[in-house]
């Protein structure tokens, strides 16, 4: 269970959110919503352990994630605004790099690329792919790792309807395996087999 306990996030002089509580159980998906600038990305970065919260803690199975950061990271897959794709490498080379970094390949990179619909682009440098194709290549990374916790920041940006459908199917399959997902998206997410819980960030009153 991933738990946010009384998180407070401060950017500059401005409190983005305070005393935010959230708990996500295996098999659950939470969609974080809120207007632009309410701190959705900041919340995801805190949950991933990339940035420390001003106050509060992120707990994995009741233990703060900082206590055993390596253990938590081995369970975590994160897709940020910058998708972590090397533009000078082909999608296959990018995936091969990630799979040797994870030391695991649940799906062989070639198959993962077929699943996200990049069969014909597998050997073209990502520089020459469109924004949507690049995002598909980044999402293929989630086919090869065996992380339990998926943190996805706007994964549907620039995707066409078939791309969105394929991401939703991937998420459904992940939830079937007992994974848990935290996602931000401005598009509605429709899963076939699992309800999507919505969590709205109550921004603190903005000082005028």
């Amino acid at each position, binding site marked *: 269970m991933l738990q946010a306990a009384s998180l407070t996030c401060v950017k500059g002089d401005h409190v983005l959110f305070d005393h935010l509580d959230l708990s996500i159980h295996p098999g659950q998906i939470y969609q974080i919503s809120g207007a632009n600038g309410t701190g959705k990305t900041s919340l995801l*970065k805190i949950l991933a352990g990339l940035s420390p919260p001003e106050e509060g803690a992120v707990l994995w199975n009741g233990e703060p994630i900082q206590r055993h950061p390596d253990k938590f990271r081995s369970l975590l897959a994160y897709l940020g605004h910058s998708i972590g794709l090397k533009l000078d490498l082909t999608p296959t080379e990018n995936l091969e*790099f990630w799979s040797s970094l994870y*030391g695991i390949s649940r799906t062989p990179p070639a198959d993962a690329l077929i699943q996200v619909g990049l069969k014909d682009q597998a050997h073209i440098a990502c520089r020459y792919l469109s924004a949507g194709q690049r995002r598909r290549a980044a999402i293929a990374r989630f086919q090869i790792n065996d992380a339990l916790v998926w943190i996805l920041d706007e994964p549907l940006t620039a995707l066409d309807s078939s791309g969105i459908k394929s991401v939703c199917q991937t998420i459904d399959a992940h939830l079937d395996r007992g994974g848990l997902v935290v996602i931000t998206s401005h598009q509605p997410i429709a899963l076939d087999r699992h309800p999507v819980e919505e969590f709205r960030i109550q921004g603190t009153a903005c000082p005028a």
Partner: protein
Amino acid sequence: MPSLIHAFQAVIKRDIRLAIRQPSEIAQPVVFFIIVVSVFPFGVGSNPDQLTAIGPGIVWVGALLATLLALDSLFRSDFDDGSLEQLILSEHPLSVLILGKILVHWFVTGLPLIIVTPLLGILLGLDKSTLVVLIGSLLLGTPTLSLVGAIGSALTISIRRAGLLVTLLVLPLYIPVLIFGAGAASAAQSGLPTAGHLYMLGAIAMGAIALAPIATSAALRISSE
């Protein structure tokens, strides 16, 4: 932990591949180095004795400036495209992965400088024994420049156009390397023993290999918050 070795190799393989696909990034520091060293005779006059006397210093200052020039490319693209976040979030110790990155960076930006040094040595009229010591001192010294530079680069990676700031941060730390490096070659020129200088350079390099990746990875974590 065998998978850590795999991860280390994966980082090295990826960075070498990226360097091959961006040859201008390799060429830039070495071309700069050749230009700096080869314009000196025009500035100080072509008196061979004078050039030979200041030759080792010119080569060392040129190598130092070329390394500074190359520092920005070390983490820039990884920071911009989000790969750095992914490296930070991997279960492996970040310092080991970063050491792999720095090694490759030295291999593609530092080693070419050493490869062209014999040619520049001939241009400056250095004799053979001086040249050997000069190359030895560069082999021991330039890895330190890359390792220490990585700390400065990591601290300023979230700031755009931080070239001047990096220079201010790391230049004081470069000075000892410069003194011992150029000192070794000068001593060889005067027929003095050079071992002391080279031992110092080696010791500094060992210290840097042990400590710089740890400092760099801590700085990268702070920079990508």
